[in-house]
């Protein structure tokens, strides 16, 4: 029982990341009909927003402190963050400590601009081209974005730790009435799951309860009719692309303490996210979220020792296996609608 709860919990944070990326992918596909291979790159850029903010916050100048000496007896050079001069020592330390959550504020405008520029500058010209061309051009874009990041930040992962308040883990089992120290769960993973749930709810609420969202949903159902009603649907779809980029970026920002940002993390997540989208059903937003969590939890169960002993290697392939089985038995995916990318 404890093992099952533990696997469920550890499946949730991986599942959250899959669900967030798949949600963005589906938003883009559902509105614009474009298969965006560069979506993983957006996730990665989100992660690097954290790195950039961390560097900005801790940017410092050097002073020579005469009161301290190093072991040779020379005056010690001390790095003083600019923050310290502005906000005082304690406040600046906690600002730097909280740079990951703060990066959310920083990442939203950045990702929005990147998303809108991407859609207006490149993807717009590919609506009338075949799906294969869309896949290929976004694949090329993904390579370019990845290499630019690699050029500026290097090939090695850059650690971006969570705030001290969220370091360590807590005993989740005792909460549920199990023995102590049986189910231990890191705080940050719980934060990540909560954050993902918040974003997903936010996106759904936005689509469901605002006029803008209603128009977008109408456009997803029948773009031409909405256009005929005199609504500039292209503009709204562009905004949705920006929103999808923001979702991917925020997923990346909050993922940095779990997985240090490196330039190829986007590609690693992208392949699985595509599988998630296809399993959930192309164009179905609830399907993407559901499939994200289902596959995340499935993967976590497959990495249990008992399962691996029984079926070696299953943890490596279970997601792909699930995708193959689902595509062959339920071609439209879990919650896919009739008529969306049928062929």
């Amino acid at each position, binding site marked *: 029982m404890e093992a099952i709860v533990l696997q469920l919990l550890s499946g949730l944070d991986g599942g959250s990341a899959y669900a967030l990326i798949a949600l963005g992918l589906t938003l883009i596909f559902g509105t614009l009909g474009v298969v965006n291979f560069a979506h993983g790159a957006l996730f990665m850029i989100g992660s690097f927003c954290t790195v950039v903010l961390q560097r900005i916050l801790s940017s410092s100048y050097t002073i020579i402190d005469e009161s301290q000496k190093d072991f040779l007896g020379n005056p010690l050079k001390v790095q003083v963050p600019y923050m310290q001069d502005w906000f005082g020592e304690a406040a600046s330390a906690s600002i730097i400590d909280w740079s990951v959550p703060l990066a959310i504020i920083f990442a939203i405008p950045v990702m929005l601009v990147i998303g809108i520029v991407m859609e207006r500058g490149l993807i717009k010209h590919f609506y009338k081209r075949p*799906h294969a061309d869309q896949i290929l051009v976004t*694949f090329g874009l993904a*390579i*370019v974005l990845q290499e630019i990041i690699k*050029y500026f930040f290097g090939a090695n992962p850059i650690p971006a730790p969570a705030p001290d308040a969220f370091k360590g883990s807590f005993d989740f089992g005792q909460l549920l009435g199990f023995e102590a120290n049986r189910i231990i769960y890191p705080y940050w993973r719980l934060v990540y799951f909560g954050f993902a749930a918040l974003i997903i709810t936010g996106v759904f609420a936005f689509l469901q309860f605002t006029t803008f969202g209603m128009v977008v949903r109408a456009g997803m159902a029948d773009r031409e009719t909405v256009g005929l009603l005199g609504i500039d649907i292209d503009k709204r779809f562009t905004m949705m692309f920006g929103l999808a980029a923001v979702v991917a970026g925020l997923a990346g920002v909050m993922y940095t303490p779990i997985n240090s940002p490196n330039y190829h993390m986007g590609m690693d997540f992208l392949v699985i996210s595509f599988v998630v989208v296809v399993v959930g059903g192309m164009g179905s937003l609830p399907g993407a979220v559901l499939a994200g969590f289902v596959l995340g939890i499935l993967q976590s169960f497959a990495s249990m020792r008992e399962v691996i002993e029984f079926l070696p290697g299953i943890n490596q392939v279970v997601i792909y296996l699930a995708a193959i089985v689902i595509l062959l038995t339920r*071609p439209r995916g879990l919650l896919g609608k009739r008529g969306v990318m049928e062929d």
Partner: protein
Amino acid sequence: MFGLTAKNTRLLFLVIFLVAFAPFLMNPFPADSAMAQFNAGYPDLMQRFVIFGIFAIGFNILFGLTGYLSFGHAAFLGVGSYAGVWMFKLLGMNVIPAIAASVLVAGLLSVVIGYICLRRSGIYFSILTLAFAQMMFALAASVLTPITGGETGLTLSLSDPRILGAAAVDGNIPVPSFFGLEMRSTYELAVGGWSFSFNTGYYFCAIIMVLAFYASIRIFQSPFGLMLRAIKTNQTRLNYTGLNSRPYTLAAFVISGMYAGLAGGLMVAMDPLAGAERMFWTASGEVVIMTILGGAGTMIGPVLGAGAIKYMENIVSKINKAVLEQWFAFMPDGMEKAFVTVFDMFTGKGWHLTLGVVFMLVIIFLPGGLVEGGQRIKGLFSRKKAQDTPSDAAKTPAE
């Protein structure tokens, strides 16, 4: 000639000419001149030109003709490599059984994968092939370690049985050979400042590539090829005429899988080791890029694309900061620094960026690839004959 139309015969002869004289064509600069780093005439690289040429030709039979975009073709190449190394380990160092086994195993695998994946088309097909390839990669790197060597890769060792071939000679692992003709033996020809190398392995691969190219032309101009093009144009209509298109797509898939296996077999025949990273999905993406860059659906396109990518990979990635500084040394200081910084982004370690940018530009402006580019140039000088186009395009990678 050879059952080809006149135009295709000329194309075949062009390819034969290019691969036969590649040691000269790829080494246009004297060995000690400053331009020598643009020479690509060393055996290792030339072998890769033709091997990836075969891979791309095979991929083009599937993607170019039927329009099915497979994102998992590297799996067949990887499996072919493993099969080839196992033949070396078990039977002996003759390359023929190794290559035959590679093609066969890759063919069998592609029947299975193709049968499953081809139930879907479009983006679903791409994802399914991707899923299969990633699965094979994950398995090869972890559970199947006894067969695949895991992450270190599969290599030959002195204790291999080699029941047909000679046992280890004086304690060294024997090298792959074609009935005694060693693949790695190279004849160096020095003429003036130039030095040309003629490598047995290269010519072995080149002959196979010409045969593979010939087979692909035959497929392109056959009724079977016409059927595949019909599938690309409008599969629904084809189905409404009462024709089951799946056997045709499966045949195309298996043929292209066998081409990939052949490429894998040749790869290990040149260098007898195989690793799981050959099956990683970026490797599949690479062959997609090659085919598109050259021109999907054209006969010579994939060959040009493979050559262009491999040339870029080797030559551009060799240009480092020191070389750039030397190039721009004549400029004023600040300008030199700016130029070096900008170019450094795209050369050396940054060559993937060049690749991505070139690939995007091709997709955006030249969906037909280098071949279309050649045709457009031809359109500008319309007096030129039709056959000049491929050769114009062929020269681009070597510049």
